[in-house]
């Protein structure tokens, strides 16, 4: 027994020494890279010293980040994306570095990127690992539409595409304003009660503090789960009592993700709701609504068309 313990202890010690050696190796190898003085603050509040002002090898660790990069005309500089990336279509030819929350660190390092765009899910494990290898990591963590615009500006700064970012965000802001100008004048009783279905079993919706809640409000609706927060489960009896006038459910483009929409249109117990009686059950592409990128404005316009079809074509 004691012998076994001793062996384990020796093994652990050896492993620790070996890891230490590896870490110091990494440091000596990276010391040749010349650091540029440009320092930016990312959306996790971290001060990041950029390796270069015009990165040529960018890895995106989230589909929304990839969409921002492509929208800024940086598509050809993207060398790695995640398994979940599918927009724009040409992204499918890009090599993958693994899952969204679980990228393969070795793969990322091997691609020798000069910029990695991460998100808050990478804060605890992935970012420290990459930074210990002297890789520049900028994290985006937008919580509101304004944050999305700010994140695009941030990516513009980090990639030397400030002009393009200004142009893109101005166009997005203008589309947002055009929606809110129409819905801003509505009195509360002109705003329909909206129920958004994230998932059907258990029934999950979006409460305050989510993009969906913000989009519903900006598109002139009242979220029936507005007094809840985050992505709560909600009981069907509360939904029936709230009697939504519009139901919007997620439906992906690919196979297998439109269960919430199928549920919204077929669940017999929702039959008595105003939304079902007046045939006002709509689907939205979960890729667009779930990704805080340039297409979030498309989602806002879709919401307006669903919640206030009469306002859509108004000037």
């Amino acid at each position, binding site marked *: 027994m004691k012998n076994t313990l001793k062996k384990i202890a020796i093994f652990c010690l050896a492993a620790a020494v070996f890891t230490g050696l590896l870490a110091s190796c990494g440091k000596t190898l990276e010391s040749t890279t010349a650091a540029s003085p440009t320092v930016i603050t990312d959306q996790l509040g971290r001060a990041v010293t950029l390796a270069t002002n015009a990165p040529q090898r960018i890895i995106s660790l989230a589909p929304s980040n990839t969409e921002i990069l492509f929208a800024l005309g940086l598509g050809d500089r993207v060398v790695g994306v995640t*398994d*979940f990336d599918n927009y724009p279509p040409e992204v499918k030819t890009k090599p993958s570095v693994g899952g969204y929350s679980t990228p393969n660190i070795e793969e990322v390092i091997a691609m020798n990127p000069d910029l990695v765009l991460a998100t808050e899910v990478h804060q605890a494990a992935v970012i420290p690992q990459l930074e210990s290898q002297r890789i520049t990591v900028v994290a985006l963590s937008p919580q509101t539409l304004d944050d999305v615009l700010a994140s695009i500006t941030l990516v513009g700064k980090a990639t030397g595409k400030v002009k393009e970012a200004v142009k893109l965000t101005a166009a997005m802001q203008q589309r947002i304003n055009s929606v809110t100008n129409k819905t801003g004048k509505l009195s509360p009783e002109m705003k329909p009660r909206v129920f958004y279905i994230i*998932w*059907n*079993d*258990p*029934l999950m919706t979006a409460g305050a503090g989510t993009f969906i809640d913000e989009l519903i409000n900006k598109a002139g609706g009242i979220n029936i789960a507005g007094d*809840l927060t985050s992505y*709560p*489960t*909600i*009981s*069907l*009896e*509360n939904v*029936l*009592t709230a*009697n939504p006038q519009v139901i919007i459910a997620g439906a*992906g483009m*690919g*196979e*297998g*993700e*439109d*269960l919430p929409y*199928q*549920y919204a249109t*077929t*669940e*017999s*117990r929702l039959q*008595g709701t105003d939304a079902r009686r007046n045939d006002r059950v709509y689907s939205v592409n979960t890729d667009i609504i779930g990704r805080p990128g340039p297409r979030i404005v498309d989602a806002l316009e879709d919401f307006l068309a669903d919640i206030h079809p009469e306002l859509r074509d108004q000037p």
Partner: protein
Amino acid sequence: MPRHIKPAEIAVTFLSGRRLRIYSLLGLAAALVVVIAVATSIGSVKIPLSTTFRILLDRLPLVDIHQTWPSSIATIILEIRLPRVILAGLVGAALSIAGATYQGLFRNPLADPYLIGVAQGASVGAIIGFLLPTAWNIAGFGLIPLLAFIGAILATVVVYLLARVGKTLPVTTLILSGVALSALLSSIASYLIISSGNKMHGIIFWLMGSFSMSRWSEVGIVLPYVAVGTAVIIVFARLLNVMQLDEEQAQQLGVNVERYKILLLAAATLITAASVSFVGTIGFVGIIIPHAVRLVWGADHRFLLPLAVLTGAIFMILTDLISRTVLAPTEIPIGVITAVCGAPFFLYLLRRRKKAIF
């Protein structure tokens, strides 16, 4: 190892004695009715008790009450709460009697309804259902429970075939092959989950178990399995008492242990599989309720089994009530509540007895 004592000697408890236990049975049956009515009238939407009872009475034949309530309230009572309460009761009853049966069959106090692969088989079946194209599904109902059921049955059949030694079915090999196959299936399930991409959240929710989407059609499917399985097990309760003796002794008493072992195993497995297929894996109930009943009323299976059915149904309806009301309109996963409510009560009973119970 089985202890060489007669069932009568084990049965020294709070409420032993034939008459007391019969009264207990009647009392629990009445309590179940009350619990069903109360649980149906409480929910995240406040509905007056009188309205609930008028809606329920209105549905009885020969009773016609003038409708003064909005139809959404009737839908909430009759189409959302009542099927949910009934399904919770059925599943609680099923898991409790299945747990009692497994514990009796295996003469092992740690046996629970999921010991021989039912839950893991069902999980793998359900996950495959999620991974298939949605077009095969009708709004998510039908295919997933069916595949879960098939998975559960297949897993136990494989365990049974692996555990057979000649014409006998030794309990030890049955448990060991159950544990081994469960481990294998759960690693397959883990692999399928991490490679399931966007469908991952749906699978995880299914695995956590929930009554939140219960409907009458599910009650209609689960009920016959639970009713028949429970009846079969209760009919053979006396045999479970005999099996508490050494198997060899039982053989000497002229009982064909092997044949009844398989019959009881099949019945317990079927009712577990039927419940797991619709509500996912709900832990704790199948192990805690039989023990609690044994602590209070004794180990005689002729009483233990029906008492476990009623206690399990009441326990599950009440824990589900807690899970859907405490943080209403949000729900707490049922498994959390079964553990939080069940464990302290069980430990209390255990400390109070301070004797070996099995």
